């Protein structure tokens, strides 16, 4: 991986032309000076291909495909990006991929049907949603042992840990609640009812807000973390798309607090939301059934997984335009980016 390709292989698509040349030149310079430059990479889990596609974020092309366990969904890196955790749902395990060798080096005891998870900021604890058994399982990433299990509602899915590491939030899709867990005791401390089928939660960078999508409700709730109460509900309306098909799943917030991006599922659009006024600014047409998203480290691009069309759309964040779609495996689901 990370092989700097010869310049002749770089196809210079128009909007990327200058940046690519610049990167390529930079790469060449650094290589010449003997430094190793890591190209940022995006890892995409392909739910129905049991594989990961690896996208080079300079060329925006798939450079590798890695075979993994059955039905890979949520994926996330450890703190130093040496390991990638993979929810292999149908294998009832979380696989640990060694990023340097692309080999699965361990299986974590995740509980049944792991779907999504979140890594605690301390890097020691992985909070895993067990979709089939209404549990959140806490796994110690060093000892590979289960350090706790917490009862939550039916079909737990979205997981988030507050930036200060004190709170863990899980969403249960059929019970339609946010379950708040005290990270120090593994105790459930509060439940917040939201609209139908909450899929994903995202803390704001300052930890004061929690954004929660409700897929069937068609809304995104902005929750005040201190009071655990909803302070705003965002609704979406796309011309020519029936409201029932507007089904929010993934949410991403830019670190400057300016924008929120919301993936709208079978509406095939990503909503651009002003994160301060909660006003929907635009809808960007992406691939079919868009679910999860990730921002590149410089937050220049937003990547989306489009399950039915089997591709990843690349959104230019500053210009708010979709600039490319990249064919990956069947039913791409999760995304994780390595700087």
């Amino acid at each position, binding site marked *: 991986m990370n092989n700097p390709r010869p310049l002749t292989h770089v196809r210079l698509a128009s909007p990327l032309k200058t940046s690519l040349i610049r990167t390529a030149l930079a790469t060449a310079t650094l290589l010449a000076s003997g430094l190793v430059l890591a190209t940022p990479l995006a890892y995409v889990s392909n739910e129905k291909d049991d594989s990961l596609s690896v996208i080079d974020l300079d060329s925006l092309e798939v450079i590798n495909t890695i075979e993994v366990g059955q039905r890979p969904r949520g994926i996330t890196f450890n703190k130093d990006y040496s390991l990638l955790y993979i929810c292999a749902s149908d294998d009832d395990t979380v696989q640990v991929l060694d990023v340097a060798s692309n080999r699965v080096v361990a299986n974590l005891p995740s509980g049944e*049907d792991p779907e999504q998870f979140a890594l605690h900021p301390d890097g020691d604890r992985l909070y895993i949603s067990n*979709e*089939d058994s*209404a549990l959140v399982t806490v796994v110690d990433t060093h000892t590979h*042992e*289960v*350090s*706790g*299990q*917490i*009862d939550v*509602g*039916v*079909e737990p899915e979205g997981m988030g840990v507050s930036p200060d590491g004190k709170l863990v939030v899980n969403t*249960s*899709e*059929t*019970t*339609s*609640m946010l*379950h708040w867990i*005290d990270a120090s*005791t*593994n*105790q*459930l*401390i*509060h*439940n*917040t*009812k939201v*609209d*139908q*089928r909450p899929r994903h939660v995202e803390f704001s960078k300052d930890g004061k807000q929690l954004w929660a999508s409700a*897929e*069937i*409700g*068609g809304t995104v709730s902005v929750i005040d973390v201190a009071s655990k109460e909803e302070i705003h509900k965002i609704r979406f309306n796309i011309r020519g798309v*029936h409201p*029932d*098909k507007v*089904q929010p799943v993934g949410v991403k917030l830019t670190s400057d607090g300016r924008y929120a991006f919301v993936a709208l599922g*079978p509406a095939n659009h990503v909503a651009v939301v002003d994160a301060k006024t909660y006003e929907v600014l635009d809808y960007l047409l992406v691939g079919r059934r868009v679910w999860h998203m990730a921002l590149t480290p410089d937050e220049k691009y937003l990547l989306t997984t489009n399950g039915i069309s089997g591709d990843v759309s690349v959104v230019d964040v500053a210009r708010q335009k979709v600039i490319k779609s990249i064919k990956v495996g069947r039913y791409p689901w999760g995304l994780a980016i390595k700087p």
Partner: protein
Amino acid sequence: MTLMDISTAIQRLATTSMLTCKSRLANLAALTITALTTTALTTATTVLLATTSQAAELQTIQIGYLELQQQQSPLLSNVLPDPEDNGLQGARLGRDDNNAGGKFLGLQYQLQESRSYQLDDLKASLQQWQTNGMQAVLVNAPADALQQLSLLAPNLLLFNIGSNSDELRSQTCLNNVLHTLPSRAMLTDALAQWLISKKLKKWLLITGTRPGDKLYADAVRRSAKRFGGKLVAEKDWTFDADLRRSAAAEVPLFTQTKEYDAVIVADEPGDFGEFILYNTWYPRPVVGTQGLTPTGWHRVVEQWGAAQLQNRFDRLAHRWMTDKDYAAWAAMRSIGETLAHQQPYAAAALKDYLLGPDFELAGFKGRKLTYRNWNGQLRQPIPLIHPRALVSQSPQEGYLHPTTELDTLGFDKPESQCRIGS
């Protein structure tokens, strides 16, 4: 077991116990946990979302399940009989799903089950439950039995999970009944939309001898008129030969009519319909009660998170989830969702909320489910399946409606005399 495991186990036990019972064991566990860590108790007491903070205030929600069991008549193709607990297991799963969320709200759902071949037994159960203050009952029974039960308990809310009668959705309007099972008209409309979308416009209709078959055929005729299908020929199946031996000889001649694009079979119990496939005079698709079938639910539905529901059902019942199971589950979940929005468990309040603008149910069919406020029918997409795959789901693309495309299936407000919502 490590110390961590033990303490985790105790903590889980304590939390669960506080929420569900106040047995001595729970108190003991609570004491143990206080000794272990003083914060655990204070944390546990703030767990509940609603006003309830003590186990003693846990509210029990009693819901009834009535089933008029039927002797199955002998059929030619009786290889796969209906499961004996058809519908009942769906209600049980709905109860379990409700309880998984209810424990955070101080609610515990219980299902009272009464099943009999005698309608009188069911009437006695219903009256008893009514006296005991029960508010909602699921009914798995044919239309006439449902009607009698509905009259017997006018102050209870009943959920029809067993009858696909069109009459109950259009003319005979039962004020205290909501229908979670799709009507025949919804099924045939779903099929007709698919046929027309595929440009299969000329149909041969074959109808069996039983009353349900004739009602299904009526629904097909209505759908043909609605969506522009043309019935080029209609035939009644009256043969009593054993088709397992002679289908290849009998059916081609029987289906030698004016040319059609598709054959629609109206054979609800599955008597002869299975033998029409691959034996028709013209090589055309067979659809309806056999072949490509519109149904409320089937094992092959796995999109939109349905795989999880199917897995839960399979673990509970060890068989495939049917349309009646789904209807029962949806009824239970409708009650659960209503109470989760701080509504009281009272028949009138339930009905008002379910027929009102705030109710929505995530039902694993790709869009939210709501009730039609004129006839109490649960709006829902209809899967079109063959036994091993989902072929399509109606409403089909392009069938528009001013309110919701789901109302292109079944009796729309102007087509129904019912006005059960106030």
